[in-house]
C-alpha cells in the first residue's frame, strides 16, 4: 500500500489512467473520423445539367445515410467536376485516390470520361460503384475487375429495351437516324442485330452531326423510307430541330422515338414534342412509391422538377454503397466487394437492383430501360405495361 504513494507509484498510476482514458475514448475518436466517398461527376460542360442532377441525388442520399451514420461514422462525400472532359476525369480520379484518400469511388456519366478513369483505376484498384457510361468499351476496359460495379444499362441493354418496346407496339419497320459520335454510332452498330431478334426491319439508317441546325434533308429521306417508327439517337440539342422540322416536312410516322441523355429545358411546352416517345431509366411520373417520395423530396428541397433519371440513379448509387459498407463491417476492398455483390435494393428508380454478370463485366446492375411518351407536358410511362401510367398513343397523332 505504501508503494503506490511513492513518486514511481503515482507516475505509474497516472500513466495507467491515461491509457485507460485513451482506450475508453477510442470509439468516440473513430466515430469522428468519417468514411470518405469520392464522386466524379460533370457539374459543368455539355453534361452539366445531368451532373448537377446527380449531385442533388447524392445530397438527398447523404441526408438519409447520415441520420444514423455507417459503422458509427459519418459519411463525407468529396465531389470532383470532370467537366465532361476525359483528362480532367483522370486527374479527378488521381486526386481523390491519392490526395483525398477516399475509401470508395462513385459517380460517372459520360463514356469517354469513364474510359479515361478506367485506365487509371486499373493501376490503383478501388471499389468503383459507377453510375454512368453506356458504351460497352468501358465494360470491356474493366471486364475482369471484381471491384467494378456498374449501375446504368450498357448500350446493348438499351438496344434490347428499345426494340422490345417497338415490337410491343405492333410496328414492323424502323427508320434510324443517329449522331455520328460514340453515343450514336454505338447504338447504331447494335441496331440491326436487335431489330432482327425482334422481327423488325430497319428500312433507313443514316448518321447526322449533332448540333446541326437543319435536319430537313435527313427527315425528308426518313419520310421517304415510310417506316412505322422513327428512332432518333441524338443529344438534347438535337431534339428541338428534329421535332419541329419533322412537322415542317410533314414527316408523321406512327411513332417518333428519341433517347437523348436529357431533354432540353422547355421541351415539355413545345406542341411539336407532344406524343414523342423516349427511353429512360426513370421518369418523374413513375408510380413506384419510393419513386414518388423521391420526386416529392426533390421538388421540396430544390424547388425544381426532377426531369432527369440521373438524380434517382445517383441516390441509389450512394445509398447502396453506404449499405454495402454497413454490411461489410469495414471499407476493406475484398469485404466491400463481397457485400456489393449481395446487394438487393429497390429504391427511387422503381426497379429492383442486384449485380450480376453481363456480357463482358462481372457486376452489372440495371439492365432495362422504360419507355415513356410526352403527354400534356409530362413523361408518361407506357412500357413495360406492369409499371405503365398510361396507354401509348400509337399511331401518334402527329400533325393532326
Amino acid at each position: 500500500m505504501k508503494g503506490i504513494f511513492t513518486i514511481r507509484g503515482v507516475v505509474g498510476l497516472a500513466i495507467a489512467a491515461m491509457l485507460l482514458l485513451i482506450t475508453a475514448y477510442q470509439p468516440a475518436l473513430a466515430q469522428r473520423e468519417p468514411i470518405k466517398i469520392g464522386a466524379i461527376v460533370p457539374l459543368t460542360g455539355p453534361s452539366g445539367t445531368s451532373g448537377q442532377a446527380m449531385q442533388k441525388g447524392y445530397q438527398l442520399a447523404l441526408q438519409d445515410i447520415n441520420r444514423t451514420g455507417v459503422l458509427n461514422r459519418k459519411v463525407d462525400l468529396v465531389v470532383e467536376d470532370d467537366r465532361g472532359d476525359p483528362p480532367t476525369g483522370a486527374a479527378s480520379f488521381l486526386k481523390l485516390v491519392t490526395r483525398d484518400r477516399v475509401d470508395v469511388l462513385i459517380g460517372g456519366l459520360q463514356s469517354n470520361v469513364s474510359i479515361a478513369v478506367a485506365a487509371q483505376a486499373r493501376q490503383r484498384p478501388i471499389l468503383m460503384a459507377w453510375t454512368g457510361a453506356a458504351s460497352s468499351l468501358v465494360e470491356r476496359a474493366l471486364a475482369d475487375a471484381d471491384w467494378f460495379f456498374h449501375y446504368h444499362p450498357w448500350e446493348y441493354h438499351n438496344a434490347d429495351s428499345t426494340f422490345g418496346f417497338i415490337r410491343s407496339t405492333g410496328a414492323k419497320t424502323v427508320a434510324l437516324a443517329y449522331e455520328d459520335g460514340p453515343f450514336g454510332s454505338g447504338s447504331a452498330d447494335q441496331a440491326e442485330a436487335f431489330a432482327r431478334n425482334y422481327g423488325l426491319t430497319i428500312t433507313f439508317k443514316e448518321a447526322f452531326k449533332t448540333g446541326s441546325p437543319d435536319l430537313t434533308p435527313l427527315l425528308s429521306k426518313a419520310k421517304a423510307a415510310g417506316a412505322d417508327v422513327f428512332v432518333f439517337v441524338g443529344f438534347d440539342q438535337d431534339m428541338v430541330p428534329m421535332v419541329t422540322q419533322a412537322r415542317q416536312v410533314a414527316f408523321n410516322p406512327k411513332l417518333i422515338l428519341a433517347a437523348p441523355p436529357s431533354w432540353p429545358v422547355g421541351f415539355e411546352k413545345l406542341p411539336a414534342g407532344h406524343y414523342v416517345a423516349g427511353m429512360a431509366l426513370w421518369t418523374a411520373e413513375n408510380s413506384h412509391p419510393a419513386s414518388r417520395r423521391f420526386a416529392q423530396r426533390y421538388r421540396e428541397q430544390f424547388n425544381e422538377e426532377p426531369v432527369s433519371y440521373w438524380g434517382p440513379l445517383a441516390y441509389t448509387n450512394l445509398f447502396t454503397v453506404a449499405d454495402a459498407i454497413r454490411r461489410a463491417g469495414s471499407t476493406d476492398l475484398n469485404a466491400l466487394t463481397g457485400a456489393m455483390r449481395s446487394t438487393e435494393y429497390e429504391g427511387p428508380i422503381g426497379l429492383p437492383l442486384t449485380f450480376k454478370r453481363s456480357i463482358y463485366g462481372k457486376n452489372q446492375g440495371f439492365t432495362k430501360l422504360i419507355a415513356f411518351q410526352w403527354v400534356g407536358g409530362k413523361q408518361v410511362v407506357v412500357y413495360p405495361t406492369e409499371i405503365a401510367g398510361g396507354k401509348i398513343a400509337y399511331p401518334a397523332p402527329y400533325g393532326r
Partner: protein
Amino acid sequence: MVIFGVLRSGLYALTSVGLALSVGVIGVVNFAHGEFLMLGAYLGYWLFVSYGIDPLLAIPIGAAALFAIGGAVFRAGIQRVLRAPELNQMLLTFGISIFLQNLAIILWTGDPRTAAVSYKATAVPLGPLVVGLPQLVVFGLAMAFVLGLYLVLGRSRLGKAMRAVAQNRVGASLIGIEVDRIYLLTFGLACALAGVAGMMVTLQLSTSPFIGLLYTLKAFAIIVMAGLGNINGVIYASLVLGLSEAFVEFYVPQGGGWSEGVFFLLILVVLLVRPKGLFRS
C-alpha cells in the same frame, strides 16, 4: 434541295456579314463572333420566357443590346491591341470567346433551352414543296438586314466612312474621318448583326452556350470564300455553302454526317486554288 440550301444561306449570310465587317474595316479576326450570336440567342430566349416577347419582335432590343455589348468589349479590349501583332489580336478574341462561353455556362448552365414559340413547327406550301415558316421568315429578314447593310455601306455617310477606313486608315484620318469612332461603330454593328442572327436561331433551335462555335466556323468559311474583307461576296458565298451542304445531305450516302465538314473542304479548296476569294470585291 435547292430550296433548303437557299433558305439556310440567309442565316449564314447574316452571321457572316458582321464578321466580314470586322475583318474588312477594322482588320480584326474576331474569334468571339459566334459568342455574340449566342448572347443574342439567350436574349431572345429570356425575353420570350420572361415577358412573352416573340423573338422577332424583340430584334430591335437585341440589336441595341448587342451593339452596346460589342462597343464595350471593343473599348475594353480590342481597341488596345489594334496596333499589336495580329497574333495578339487573335489570342484576345479567342480569350473573349472562352470567357463569354463560360460566363453563359455559369449563368444559365450548359442545358439547351427552347423557346416554345407557337409557330416553331408551322410549315407553309411553296409550290410543290412545304417549308418551315420560321426558316422562311428568317431567310427573308436575314436578307433584308444584309441588303440594308449594303445600302448603308453604299449610300450613307457612315457607310462611306467605313469603306474609306477599310481602304486606307491613314488616308481616311487625313481627310477628317475619326477612325477610332468608325472602328467602334463597326464592331458594335458587327456584334449587333450577330446578335440578331442569334435571336433568329432561337426561333428554330435550342439555345445553349455552345451554339456559337458552329456559326463562327461557317462564317469563317464564308468570308474566306468571299475573300477576306469582301462584304459584297458574302451573300454569294453563303449560297455556295448552303447549297453545298444541302447537296451533300440529300445526295451523298450518309451525307448527314459529312455535310458539316463541307465548310472545311471549301476553306481548303479556296485557300489552295484562289486565296483571294471566289468573288470580286
